[in-house]
């Protein structure tokens, strides 16, 4: 028994001495905060922050090269946790954003110019005359955004438009970057009024090719609060800093403006209307 104890202790002693020596000889300086921060991050490695993975972001934050609220997925909660680790203060006040598709032109209301046959991917399809939709600004409906969403928050509807599930969406921004038509925007979840069009075409042309496109009539600009809706190159654009009453939607002759509840408050009729095309 004694020999066993002695043998084991000796072995342990020799091993630990060896390890200590090696650790000394091959020491690498490291920042313990990196691991802590990485633990606080969601760990989905979605790339929403623009970096290859959560580990890389953790390293950047620890080195002070990235802000503590750089993770769009984790939002306020994660930012606060990281602030604790880094010994910084975090003000908060970040309103959750979700992706939103600024196009209402599904297959029933928006015209197509040709029969497309080829790769089922929006960016690839845009190589050929910018896509088969007569509206050059509209959603092409091939589901590239659905494919890149790491959170299964985006689904193509049979009508040819994608739909965002606000609950699942983390505003990682992958779909925003992937959309070749740049019609997906991150919008504050508490705002209800949206203009579902991105077309800069003139009104006459829009009328011809899409039943729900913005024709630039400026009625909404006049109806809404001062500066809340602005005309930009034939297109009405919502400034999400403002709270706009739902009633503004009623003045739109094309039903382009819709009141949609993204955070689950109020009625969700608007969402259904958007999904169904609203005609």
């Amino acid at each position, binding site marked *: 028994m004694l020999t066993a104890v002695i043998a084991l202790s000796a072995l342990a002693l020799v091993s630990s001495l060896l390890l200590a020596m090696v650790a000394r000889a091959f020491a690498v300086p490291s920042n313990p905060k990196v691991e802590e921060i990485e633990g606080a991050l969601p760990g989905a490695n979605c790339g929403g922050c623009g970096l290859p993975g959560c580990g890389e972001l953790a390293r950047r934050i620890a080195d002070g090269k990235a802000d503590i609220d750089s993770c769009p997925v984790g939002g306020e909660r994660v930012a606060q946790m990281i602030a604790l680790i880094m010994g910084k203060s975090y003000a908060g006040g970040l309103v959750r954003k979700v992706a939103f598709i600024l196009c209402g032109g599904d297959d029933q209301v928006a015209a197509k110019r040709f029969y497309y*046959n080829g*790769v089922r991917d929006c960016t*690839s399809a845009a190589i*050929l*005359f910018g896509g088969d939709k007569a509206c050059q600004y509209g959603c092409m409906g091939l589901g590239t955004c659905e494919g890149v969403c790491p959170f299964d928050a985006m689904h193509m509807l049979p009508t040819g438009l994608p739909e965002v599930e606000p609950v699942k969406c983390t505003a990682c921004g992958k779909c925003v970057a992937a959309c070749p038509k740049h019609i997906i925007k991150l919008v504050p979840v508490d705002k209800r009024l949206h203009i579902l069009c991105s077309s800069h075409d003139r009104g006459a042309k829009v009328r011809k090719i899409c039943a729900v496109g913005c024709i630039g009539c400026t009625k909404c600009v006049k109806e809404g609060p001062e500066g809340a809706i602005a005309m930009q190159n034939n297109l009405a654009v919502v400034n999400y800093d403002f709270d706009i009453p739902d009633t503004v939607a009623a003045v739109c002759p094309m039903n382009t403006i819709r009141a949609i509840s993204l955070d689950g408050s109020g009625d969700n009729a608007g969402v259904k209307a958007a999904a169904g095309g609203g005609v």
Partner: protein
Amino acid sequence: MAGGKFFGGVHPEYNKDLAAARAIEAMPLAARLVVHFAQNLGAAPKPVVKKGDAVKKGQIIAEPQGFISVPIHAPTSGTVQSIDIFPHPVGADMQAAVIIPDGKDEWADGCNVERDASRFDAEAIKQIVRDAGLVGMGGAAFPTHVKLSPPKEKPIDLLIINGAECEPYLTSDHRLMLEKPAQILEGASYFAKVLGVNNVSVAIEKNKPDAIEAMRKAAEKLGIAVRGLDVVYPQGAERQLIFALVGRTVPAGALPMDVGVLVQNVGTSFAAYEAIRFARPLIERVVCVTGRGIVNPRNVLVRIGTTFGDVITYCGGQQPDAGKVIGGGPMMGVAQYSLEASVTKGTSGIVVLKQEEVAQFVGEACIRCGRCVRACPMRLNPSVLGIFAERLRFDDAGEHHVLDCIECGCCAYVCPSRRPMVHQFRRAKAEVRRKAAKAS
């Protein structure tokens, strides 16, 4: 140096007999011309006319921007009705001028005068070629004067006049060689003069024996060799043509001038002849209007800017079951969505296919049969490239040399799974280039 057979290639049904026997005929002026500004590879020229301006035939309506750019000329006299966005046959919507001809077809000053070309030196010829708006008329539309200006350390010792016309259906170069052999060779002689080259070869696929015969006859006195080439697509692609003719391999990522060769299309040579001898800028070209979807296939001499619709109407219109209109040949041409697309300098043909002839991409899984590997004239592995592109793994596609793809279409032509490979490669190439541009 002896030539050889290049690797790969396919043997599509050529269908050249549809229009090969029809002599070139000049199409009457259309009621409305849509002249695109961007007609050359490189920088698009800048418009210098505005709505309401009166223009003369041959007058410059867009000035070149930078070296790799050529001017655009008014194809006839008339007024500029508007400047707007129109479908361009290369596959995008672009800015174009709508010109309403006044019917007088009046030349601008200094144009259309016969002159003695022997007084021009190399620089003068280059300048004329540029001012006349010459671009490669085989389809790529690369400015000719740029090609004629190789850097000093890369001397050219061989000029190849490319009459291979390997694209199925098309016969415009074929007819041009039959009808204007002497003029083509004279144009080629100006190129030779600019480059200081004595060695000129005309390369024609053997399926055009009459064209070989005609060119031989004209070339005899000039000491220019006319060579018949095996009939295999893409025989007319520069790299493959050079290898087949003289056995030189153009390094990947390099240009023919790196091996001392310059290739010019027969149509370009003819345009050079017109520009240098008669001071006629490039405002019209031979377009082969063909395919089973066309009522009367024929070869027509068309003003640049004539809409496809007008050209097709002139050729008897479309058959009722026409399903696809292609600007260019069926292997590399671009399918058009609108007949408002207009003839540009690079439009070698308008092919209208019947619905049942059109290849439909299904995009089933790759079964790795290797037919594309055997067909690819660039010795790529289209199978794996296509799989990478399909999964949006463009970095891997780049590693497998997707940038060397010449988009000849051989892989997709033979693919039993009907995968849209060329489409995928175009996307992949764009992504790889974008990434490289970002990095630098």
